[in-house]
């Protein structure tokens, strides 16, 4: 249970070229960092598909195009469909390039899950990277299926009767794994080498691959823009997020956090959790406990 070391990409041996530049994301945006580094692993020959969402919105504003790669914005619901269409087209034309999709949590777990499920099921090679900032950010911080329990969003505000979001996060990683996908992993921009190496494994997988990367959003979460990496690390260290892989039909945990870590420092740094009462925080800790109990029991 250690961070995978089989392939060793790091800041020094990845390409110094940039394939994602000049975009209009907010300063300190976690998603944009995930894209930037993923592309350094994937290379400029990869064909990219991105649905509506922050990353598309900040990167294709005519006449400013932030990707060096071939890239296409997809209808919001059809990231994986367009990406596999691209893959099929390239295959039919005998062009040996990788088709890679990047989508947000809403675009993945909600409106895009059907296209993703179908694409995995078809079994053709492509990579899908979900950048999870835990809400619909591009439209102004609405609740998605991956918004965590307790978070205040604009559609689950901290109200007098209902205090923020009352549903836990969807188990997107496990849902994908249940499709019997070739390779799937979770990651965090707090652990960037781990993330890059997982992208590399996805690249080498013999079929569809999925990576779910936790990506803080200063604007949507209400934290200082310089805290993005720190929060993304802390959330792994306190067990509210986990690093894991699914390969050859088996799950593997990459890192075991100290579950006695207090979750408060993590929550306190973010406006979206500021309203939480002690009982809410206890609930969050309880959910964490349940999740880890299940993972530790089943994923060894």
């Amino acid at each position, binding site marked *: 249970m250690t961070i995978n070391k089989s392939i060793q990409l790091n800041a020094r041996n990845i390409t110094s070229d940039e394939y994602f530049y000049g975009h*209009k*994301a*907010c*300063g300190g945006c976690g998603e944009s960092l995930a894209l930037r580094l993923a592309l350094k692993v994937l290379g400029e020959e990869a064909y990219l598909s991105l649905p509506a969402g922050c990353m598309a*919105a*900040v990167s294709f*504003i005519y006449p400013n195009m932030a990707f060096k790669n071939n890239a296409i914005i997809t209808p919001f619901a059809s990231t994986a469909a367009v990406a596999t269409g691209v893959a099929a087209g390239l295959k039919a034309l005998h062009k040996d390039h990788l088709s890679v999709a990047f989508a947000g949590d809403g675009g993945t777990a909600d409106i895009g899950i059907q296209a993703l499920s179908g694409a995995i099921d078809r079994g053709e090679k492509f990579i899908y990277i979900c950048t999870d900032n835990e809400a619909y950010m*591009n439209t102004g911080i609405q609740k998605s299926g991956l918004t965590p329990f307790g978070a205040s969003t604009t559609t689950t505000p901290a109200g007098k009767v209902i205090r923020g979001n009352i549903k836990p996060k969807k188990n997107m990683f496990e849902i994908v794994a249940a499709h019997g996908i070739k390779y799937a992993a979770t990651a965090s921009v707090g652990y960037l080498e781990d993330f890059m190496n997982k992208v590399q494994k996805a690249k080498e997988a013999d079929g569809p691959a999925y990576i779910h990367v936790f990506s803080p959003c*200063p*604007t949507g979460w209400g934290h200082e*823009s310089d805290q993005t990496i720190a929060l993304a690390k802390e959330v792994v260290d306190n067990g509210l997020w986990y690093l894991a892989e699914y390969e050859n039909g088996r799950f593997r945990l990459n890192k075991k956090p100290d579950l006695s870590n207090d979750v408060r420092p993590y929550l306190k740094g973010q406006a979206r959790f500021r309203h939480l009462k002690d009982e809410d925080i206890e609930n969050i800790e309880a959910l964490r406990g349940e999740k880890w109990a299940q993972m530790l029991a089943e994923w060894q």
Partner: protein
Amino acid sequence: MFEIRWHGRGGQGSFTGAKLLGVAASIYDEKFAQAFPSFGPERRGAPVLGFNRISNEKITDRSELTKCDYIVFLDDTLFDESVLSDLKNEDALILINTQRVFSHKNIRGIDATKIALEILGIPISNTVMLGYLARYAKEAVRYQACMDAIRASMKPSIAEKNIEAFKCAYEQGGL
């Protein structure tokens, strides 16, 4: 018809300033008002605009607002001399939150951030700039209406401080 444009950055509250002005004129005064933001995919940190129309008659015009009676800058790094050409006439004014001194006859400066920091404890200068605007745009909006608007729109805990900040700029035109 008074036409006003606010310049700020995503997160600085420039549009809140425009909204307060609209509330003052149309709810706490007998005037008609519109307030609308610049429309677009701007992210936090990017420059944004806010607009007001204020009139004694019902406002039905929905077209973009180009020439202004007042242009308000919440941050002097956003100011650029070229905006002078957007002023409607000789009397039109540009009001800037700045420590710098401008000598142009259509430009007035105030260190709103300093006032905000002193009175509110945070560098959010929209109510200060509203006061500074109200000081000049007396025909567009009444003093009392602005205070009523602030009181009605903000949480009591911060409303009074903001009224104080507003007053400071309105009465003294700076410190």
